[in-house]
């Protein structure tokens, strides 16, 4: 191998090591299956290598690789459609009424604030996992992976304004799920009016 090519490969391998967790985690966010996520991660890096010459050094590798991941995920979804199985997605979400209009932001009662946020552990991840894909992935990218709106818009191929509303709506759904869970456990009283 020529020196130049060798150098590029080493550079790319370094990027693989640095971003493998990110890609794997977001892949899992997309497909909710660890085995498939592993596969998607491999395909993504192999595919990205083929067009690595088109990647401009010094620009945002994170957004670039995640965008490829999203395409790999969509291709995979389309390809697995040949299977004659009924696919049922997860639409039953605690405290989530799909017909409800998105609510404007509002404050939580002061008296319940402290316990409310101390209550949760695994539930947060569980409720996030159950959310519809568009909101799940938006919240994951924004709040867990720390991408900004611009990057998320680029990765998901949606307008920047849509990013804001998906992230926000996702958080609202999550918050609602957590609240109704807390109410069920008797930690939270019904909202006083």
């Amino acid at each position, binding site marked *: 191998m020529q020196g130049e090519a060798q150098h590029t490969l080493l550079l790319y391998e370094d990027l693989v090591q640095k971003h493998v967790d990110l890609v794997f985690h977001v892949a899992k966010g997309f497909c909710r299956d660890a085995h498939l996520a592993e596969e998607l991660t491999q395909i993504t890096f192999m595919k990205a290598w083929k067009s690595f010459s088109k990647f401009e050094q010094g620009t945002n590798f994170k957004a670039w690789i995640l965008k490829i991941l999203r395409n790999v995920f969509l291709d995979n979804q389309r390809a697995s459609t040949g299977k004659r199985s009924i696919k049922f997605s997860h*639409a039953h979400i605690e405290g989530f009424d799909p017909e409800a209009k998105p609510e404007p932001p509002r404050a939580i009662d002061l008296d319940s604030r402290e316990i409310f946020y101390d209550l949760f552990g695994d539930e*947060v991840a569980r409720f996030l996992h159950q959310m519809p894909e568009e909101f799940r992935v938006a919240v994951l990218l924004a709040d867990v992976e720390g991408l*900004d709106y611009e990057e998320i818009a680029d990765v998901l191929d949606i307008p920047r304004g849509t990013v804001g509303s998906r992230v926000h709506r996702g958080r609202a759904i999550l918050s609602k799920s957590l609240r109704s869970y807390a109410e069920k456990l008797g930690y939270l009283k019904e909202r006083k009016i």
Partner: protein
Amino acid sequence: MKCEEVIPLLREYVDRELGDADARRIEEHLDDCHECASIVRDENELKLVIRKHVRPDPAPANLANVIVRKLREEAQPARRWSIQRIITLGFIASAATIFVVFTTLMIISNQQHQNAMRLLDLMIDDHVKASNFDPDELVDCKAVGAEEVEEWIRSHRTDNFRVPELESGNVKMLGAKCCMVGGREVEVVFYEWDGKRTSLFIVSDEENVLQAADPANLVDADKAMMSRRGFNVVCWKRDETFFALVTGSEERSIVETIGRSYN
């Protein structure tokens, strides 16, 4: 700034997506406004809770190494020409041809897929609109039973089909309406299902355009369900007729109801 002006900007403010000037104006308001300040605090705390409790699982330990090994295998220097290599190249050439044809087909089917998804979105829009109507005002044909509705719909169209019988105590047929969705004539049957409004869209699809709508290839009685914009959308195709059911009901209820009559 007034609260009404501030509130729509809080979302971007919390995510540090506002410009400095706007952010400063918001902060001035927050200093004096308890209500808006607590919205910001709640959103920030929620962000913190998410960050704290949703810990990304690391990738499997050897995944990066597996990828690196594959990359190196692919980057192997070319070997000297040999008969075997020529045969291999012939293989690659024909594979490439197949790939090009396949990719072209994929692009076409991708386009179809997008068209179909657009149509499904329009259906969801109509469903949302219809949900706000009194059923008596909404329907062209009030349901007395599936047969009457079927007969009424048949009088509108040429394809031969049956209105699915949704067998469940929780489903009540309200009636049917004829309308245009995305430039197509579509019949809609409305139901009350688990107390929620449900719309069944019936579309003629001789050109098979809508076949691409689903994630599970709709052939014959195969059904596909996807979660889209907060609804469960179940699609299936019978002969030349495409059905799309838009519902707020839960998957379990859907499996029980249509799973039984269509498996």
